[in-house]
């Protein structure tokens, strides 16, 4: 049996019935990493002994006759901006090359209690800033479907690990599409939950009003199971909310006939490439066949979303990254013996070009004389964009779009033009500005065989509706379109 194709439920079932051990399953993924990762480069570091020890613990529970937890033996890749105690957490940055996490992120504690096995840490754009994983200070990750193409980003390592079946599932983080776009590029499912649904304690901060942690997996059911485990109030993250967490996986399978799905009119002129348009139209047809009503809606401030997003994200990034000063952790370059030159030379050596660019722009839009014109203005436009979505959700249950306007692009294609890279985020960034949940699902392939993703967005805390529609689409054969 090929363990690398199994869902969480089947993995747990095999272990429960004694048909396979957690160690055997973990080894199957480690073999797959050995075989595929030299080319894909999804992992920044993986620790076989560390993973096997966790798997042995699950086998020990089985032998002791204890009930197995929900994700028992599920081998996962964890984006390298989430802390796992005792393992390095580099954020894809020279700055944190030797940083060893002193504690677990809350999501890691919760997944460990649920029996998940952590295989290793997945590559990302430095500090999660990018859409291709080419901004990693260490190496680019390649698309598992084509070595010449990017896996998307910033959670490119997480998506490529799942897409190449080197991990059964993964955690990513999404500040402007960083889970959904790589999920789309790598042909897997990825979900960004509602802002505040999942605790961010132990996530290295980038844009604090936008960041959310979320799952990636080969199917919707596993995404639902993982989401349930990581969701909920955490006293260690004051922004996490005490909203009830439903049994998302248990809620799947209900018919979706009568569901109202909104098609934003403005998205038509957003430069959707031909192969993506064709697949998305087939996807829309499938939702209609499932009995959904497709309704055109207006999101009049769509044109302003990217500008709004980048002003806010860069401002927040420049504040959050002020902490990398060479004092308490991370790289230190001594400089000329004074504090100021130590700061400057440390930050110069520690940060890559994209991170520096964003710190510079973020500092500029927050600087005296420019704050109102840029930062305050963007926050006001954020209000207008939020109102657009509130009005649309008066009429529909979900919104639908491509996840990315284009299929995966080639390595190097956009690295010299930061603005072109930003413009490819048009369909994903609004969910972060508005704080709503979104999912990307496979929706067939281009004639060249590259995956295309379709995105569903829901109302605040309506993850169940999003997941159920996604599941119905998957079960009706939408992935194979």
């Amino acid at each position, binding site marked *: 049996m090929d363990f690398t194709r199994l869902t969480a439920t089947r993995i747990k079932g095999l272990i429960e019935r004694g048909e396979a051990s957690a160690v055997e399953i973990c080894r199957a993924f480690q073999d797959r990493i050995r075989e595929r990762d030299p080319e894909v480069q999804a992992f920044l570091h993986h620790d076989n002994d560390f993973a096997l020890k966790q798997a042995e613990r699950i086998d020990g529970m089985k032998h002791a006759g204890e009930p197995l937890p929900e994700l028992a033996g599920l081998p996962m890749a964890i984006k390298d901006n989430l802390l796992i105690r005792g393992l390095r957490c580099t954020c894809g940055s020279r700055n944190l090359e030797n940083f060893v996490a002193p504690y677990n992120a809350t999501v890691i504690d919760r997944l460990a209690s649920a029996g998940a096995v952590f295989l290793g840490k997945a590559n990302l754009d430095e500090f999660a800033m990018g859409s291709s994983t080419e901004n990693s200070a260490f190496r680019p990750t390649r698309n598992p479907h084509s070595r010449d193409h990017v896996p998307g980003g910033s959670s490119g390592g997480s998506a490529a690990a799942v897409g190449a079946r080197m991990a059964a599932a993964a955690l990513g983080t999404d500040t402007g599409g960083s889970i959904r776009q790589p999920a789309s590029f790598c042909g897997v499912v990825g979900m960004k939950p509602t802002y505040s649904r999942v605790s961010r304690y132990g996530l290295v901060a980038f844009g604090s009003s936008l960041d959310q942690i979320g799952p990636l997996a080969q199917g919707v059911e596993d995404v639902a199971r993982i989401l349930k485990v990581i969701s909920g109030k955490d006293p260690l993250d004051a922004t996490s909310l005490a909203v009830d967490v439903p049994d998302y996986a248990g809620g799947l399978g209900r018919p979706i006939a009568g569901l109202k799905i909104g098609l934003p009119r403005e998205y038509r002129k957003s430069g959707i490439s031909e192969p993506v348009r064709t697949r998305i139209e087939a996807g829309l047809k499938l939702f209609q066949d499932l009995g959904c009503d497709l309704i055109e809606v207006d999101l009049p401030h769509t044109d302003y979303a990217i500008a709004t997003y980048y002003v806010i994200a860069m401002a927040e990034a420049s504040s959050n990254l002020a902490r990398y000063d060479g004092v308490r952790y*991370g790289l230190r370059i001594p400089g000329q013996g004074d504090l100021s030159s130590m700061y*400057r030379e440390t930050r110069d050596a520690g940060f890559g070009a994209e991170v*520096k660019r964003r710190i*510079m*722009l973020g500092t500029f839009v927050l600087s005296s004389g420019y704050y109102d014109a840029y930062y305050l203005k*963007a926050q006001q436009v954020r209000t207008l964009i939020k109102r657009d979505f509130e009005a649309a959700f008066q009429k529909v249950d979900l919104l639908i779009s491509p996840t990315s306007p284009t299929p995966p692009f080639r390595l190097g294609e956009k690295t010299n033009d930061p603005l072109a890279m930003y413009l490819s985020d048009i369909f994903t960034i609004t969910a972060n500005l508005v704080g709503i949940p979104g999912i990307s699902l496979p929706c067939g392939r281009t004639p060249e065989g590259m995956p295309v993703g379709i995105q569903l967005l829901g109302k*605040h805390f309506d993850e169940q509706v999003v997941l159920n529609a996604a599941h119905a689409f998957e079960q009706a054969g939408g992935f194979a379109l």
Partner: protein
Amino acid sequence: MKIDGARVDYIANLAQLAVTEEEKRELIGQMNSILDYVEQLNRLDTSGIEPTAQVVHTSEQNYSWRADRVRSGFSQEQSLGNGPATGSGHFKVPKVISEK
């Protein structure tokens, strides 16, 4: 043009970043092109529109309250564990106060 060499120096100083002459030339071009793109926000009249700093904590019931009690934190050893230069239970930094 909003960003010139002097402005790059000024911002780099605020951000505590060292910028080489070559990086400066590149940043001038890239920052101006991104800011030109951002300029389109000025087409919108936003007078009287409340700014949105975050999206879900909009009413008091969503605020996070907890009792103000002492909780255990990280040990000194844990806190200093990743320090690039430490000694006598402290982080070491270059001298901050001059002798003048």
